[in-house]
């Protein structure tokens, strides 16, 4: 059987209340479901390692070329941390930038969510290291859903803000994927990079027809295919040992073509579901921020959804796939470039290992002073 959902028969059901109001985008431009979970972006920030690795640099190490990589992925360069640097170093820089943009001190947040699949170390959580650096004692936790992690985090954060579990949440997406790359694997090496981005989220006003927040969302998993992408060793089943080191079990393995196929199908189906539930047509979307995994995946999805390249935020050429950091990093750059304004409808969609997906339709509400360019983590720090 096909593991990826086809439109209309997806396996994950939307929030029941959202499903009730679902209707076909035939009502394009005439109906938008009221905001279900109010959430405002108090501030945005991003951080990147200083070191750039270009395709030409990679071509010196493995059998590849700039042309081959650009044609198949859209990636021209990626950022890579220096030895000894970890995910939390980037997370903290991005978090500080977001707090500054929001005009808040770290002490003002009462929830810290770090979405990452590349923790500093197996234990404790990366949130621990971020909390230590920010000197906060609030509830702090990692959330792991690979490249869909930040959207999972966004929906969970909005839910916590709506229920009163949190009033001010710092949601960070941060990854150091470069250290998981097999230096001899020409198929994965060009794809991934390091980076982080953060958002300060507040609950804002009560949900209403035009208030900022989540209108509809769809979080799900195609777990039958969870072996297609992963790091097989270093966990409880195959703990690190001389044997796992020798067979490269600590490196990321990916069956790229099958992931590609499932990504296109799952993201398309999920976006259709979310747009339908919101009563929104493709033309109503001001900004589509897809996970930046591979430009070819996005190129396949965008026309299927009736979206245009102009509506779509892409920055993969500069950063590669930064997993949980990719959507907030793209969102941050889009906001800095003035591509999104209060009241706009924004569609974010992530898909990755698991195979998890997360899609959310939101009405944009931003209270920051204006996101600055990503901060740089110096290589010699």
């Amino acid at each position: 059987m096909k593991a990826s959902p086809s439109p209309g028969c997806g396996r994950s059901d939307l929030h029941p209340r959202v499903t009730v109001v679902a209707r076909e985008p035939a009502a394009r431009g005439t109906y938008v479901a009221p905001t279900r979970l109010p959430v405002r972006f108090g501030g945005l920030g991003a951080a990147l390692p200083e070191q750039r690795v270009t395709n030409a640099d990679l071509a010196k190490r493995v059998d590849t070329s700039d042309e081959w990589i650009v044609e198949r992925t859209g990636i021209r360069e990626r950022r890579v941390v220096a030895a000894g640097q970890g995910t939390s170093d980037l997370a903290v820089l991005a978090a500080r930038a977001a707090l500054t943009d929001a005009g808040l001190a770290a002490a003002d947040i009462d929830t810290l969510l770090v979405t990452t699949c590349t923790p500093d170390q197996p234990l404790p959580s990366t949130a621990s290291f971020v909390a230590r650096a920010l000197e906060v004692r609030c509830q702090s936790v990692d959330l792991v859903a690979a490249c869909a992690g930040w959207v999972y985090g966004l929906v969970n954060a909005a839910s916590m803000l709506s229920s009163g579990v949190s009033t001010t949440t710092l949601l960070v997406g941060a990854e150091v994927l470069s250290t998981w790359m097999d230096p001899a694997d020409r198929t994965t090496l060009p794809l991934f990079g390091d980076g982080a981005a953060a958002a300060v989220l507040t609950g804002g006003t009560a949900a209403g027809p035009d208030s900022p927040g989540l209108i509809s969302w769809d979080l799900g998993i195609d777990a039958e295919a969870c072996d297609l992408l992963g790091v097989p060793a270093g966990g409880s089943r195959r703990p690190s040992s001389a044997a796992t080191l020798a067979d490269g079990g600590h490196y990321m393995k990916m069956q790229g073509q099958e992931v590609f196929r499932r990504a296109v199908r799952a993201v398309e189906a999920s976006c259709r579901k979310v747009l339908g539930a919101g009563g929104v047509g493709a033309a109503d979307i001001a900004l589509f921020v897809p996970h930046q995994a591979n430009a070819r995946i996005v190129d396949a999805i965008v026309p299927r959804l009736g979206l245009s390249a102009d509506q779509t935020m892409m920055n993969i050429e500069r950063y590669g796939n930064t997993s949980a950091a990719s959507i907030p990093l793209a969102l941050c750059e889009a906001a800095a470039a003035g591509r999104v304004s209060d009241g706009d409808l924004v569609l974010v969609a992530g898909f990755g290992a698991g195979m998890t997906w997360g899609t959310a339709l939101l009405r944009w509400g931003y209270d920051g002073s204006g996101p600055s360019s990503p901060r740089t983590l110096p290589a010699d720090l």
Partner: protein
Amino acid sequence: MDRNEAFAQLREAAVEVLHVDASAVTEDARFKEDLDADSLALIEFVMALEERFDISVPEEELDGVTRVGQALDLVMAKLPASA
């Protein structure tokens, strides 16, 4: 569906997904050399076939498929005999 009908459908899919002229899509055409389709383009093409013909083509069945005619064989083998 007979082979001619299936081929017409397949050709439409190739024109749409691979951005080639219909005239270039012959049974002898090689995906890589003649239609300039790399591995991801081939996956996209197979996805289009799956949707058009309501069939499922696992990745391993694509091994050795280098020509349009072979893709057509694959489709024909999966179509219900009565259709």
